[in-house]
């Protein structure tokens, strides 16, 4: 990734983070930690990699993205609004009575959302189905799925892992948001998923491990995945829950929480400082 593009995407990431935090602050509830850990992944997907048409969200040849960890909906709303699927002003309605922007994604209310999620563990199977359909219809499109590391504790994930390898769905690219936190604490203390790379390898997947906040590594991993035929792909993204806001980073309690006014102001100030550093 050249340095100009990288700077543009970094700036976009900061916009998205501001949106995410404002959305949750305004609503007085939401899931900030797991939204912030995947900002870079979704920014590369939506602003660089995915073939999509904002003016034609249902374009049959599009790439698809599934947020299997549906509680990170604020991130998807921010990304879709930044990408032009709906006006940014709508973001302020998150979780308000009558809103299209429900706490968890509703595919029938928001253009660009491919699957209604919120019950963990179901997105990967649906992703396999969509990838198989693209293959049957001879479409050159990819399906991307974002799963959480706590979410991997759901048995259905491993049923899906076996199916994807069995059916050789190589147009399926999964990102694991490995932020090491879930609701009740750190993943290793609740139900350890490691060594997670070996698990996926032994299930027959093409596995890569990257720094999930490094835009170049994210892009390179996607390009690499597309070049390896015959296997489904998982990109294990080592991330930090609450990434970018000092008081939230790696704190399980920021899984689902509202911001106080003070916390909100501090978050905005930190993002402003990051933006200034970027402009230098």
């Amino acid at each position, binding site marked *: 990734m050249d340095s100009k593009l990288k700077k543009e995407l970094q700036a976009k990431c900061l916009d998205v983070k501001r949106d995410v935090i404002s959305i949750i602050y305004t609503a007085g509830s939401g899931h900030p930690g797991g939204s912030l850990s995947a900002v870079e992944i979704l920014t590369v997907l939506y602003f660089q990699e995915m073939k999509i048409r904002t003016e034609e969200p249902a374009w049959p040849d599009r790439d698809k993205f599934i947020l299997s960890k549906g509680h990170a909906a604020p991130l998807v709303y921010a990304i879709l609004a930044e990408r032009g699927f709906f006006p940014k002003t709508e973001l302020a309605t998150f979780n308000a009575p009558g809103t299209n922007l429900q*706490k968890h994604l509703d595919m029938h209310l928001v253009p660009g959302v491919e699957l209604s999620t919120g019950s963990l563990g179901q997105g990967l199977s649906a992703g396999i189905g969509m990838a198989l359909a693209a293959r049957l219809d001879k479409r050159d499109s990819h399906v991307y799925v974002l799963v959480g590391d706590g979410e991997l504790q759901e048995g259905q994930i491993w049923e899906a892992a076996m199916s994807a390898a069995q059916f050789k769905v190589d147009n399926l690219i999964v990102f694991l948001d490995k932020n090491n936190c*879930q609701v009740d604490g750190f993943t290793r203390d609740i139900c350890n998923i490691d060594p997670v790379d070996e698990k996926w390898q032994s299930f027959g997947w093409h596995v890569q491990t990257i720094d999930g906040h490094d835009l170049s590594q994210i892009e390179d991993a996607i390009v690499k995945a597309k070049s390896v035929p015959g296997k489904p792909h998982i990109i294990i993204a080592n991330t930090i829950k609450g990434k970018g806001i000092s008081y939230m980073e790696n704190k399980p309690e920021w899984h689902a929480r509202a911001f106080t006014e003070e916390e909100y102001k501090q978050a905005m100030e930190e993002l402003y400082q990051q933006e200034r550093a970027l402009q230098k």
Partner: protein
Amino acid sequence: MNYPTQLQPFGHALAELGAIDERIIVIDADLQRATETNFFQEQYPERYFDVGIAEANMVGISAGLALSGKTVFCGTFSSFITQRVCDQVVISVGYCRSNVKLIGVEPGIASGRNGASHQALLDIAIMRAIPGMTVFDPADAIELRAMLKYLAENPGPAYMRVPRGKVPVIFDETTYRFEAGKAAMLRDGKDAAIISGGILLPEAIQAAENLAAKGVQARVLNMGSIKPIDKQAILAAARDTGCIVTAENHSSYGGLGGAVAEIVSQNCPVPMRILGIEDRFGEVGPNDWLLARFGLNADAIEKAVIETIEKKGR
């Protein structure tokens, strides 16, 4: 209507039961604060397990423990403990007659902070149809505590809906007696009967008061014990008042209204109206707003009672 509240009655009562009966085990699926089981865990860490985000596994492990002599409480949001793990509940709990108490937190619209994916609107329909499954929907903190004690003392599969956090106190603790399969008549009346329970009970009471002010006398039954259900009280209501309105925090299919209709239609048919959520999924919003949106608040109940009375004797 403003009732006093108790904070986290379920979590505290469960921890208290832990002291009385050491066979009690609690299992969680990465939601210990939502299920308020952190209190139990703090006191009895050796009898507490968190399986992570793996509800099917949780139900299976619970069944195994129960079939080895333990009394197991396992819970998560009501959508997940009923819909998500339906077959595990049917087979490992129901069919095996395991002594597992399934706890469904924030049932029905009460999960309005999380929206459709978390709003179990058909949990009662599912659980009620499982042979041998007890089903409770407490209206307040007092009833909740009494039901919980009953579950701890009486072996067998059970499902209880659990309101979380601040829970109203409607009943008088000194006089309230809970009996499984018995309804409580909160108000008598000859013109109609309102059968309700759970978080809709205050709306039903309010509706009856509004009706009384207009000269319409409605009997109000709290049917917190949905299975077993108080057949006698239902039939008496049908005979004495000649029409029944049910109001529930659930789909209008297969819940309390369905249970009442099964009895009324086959024994003493009278006009009935089943108020519930009409063939749709939930959405985010505060309780009051959702109750109004789904036509389940006191005003809607009042209107339904008047319309149902008009159908009498036709």
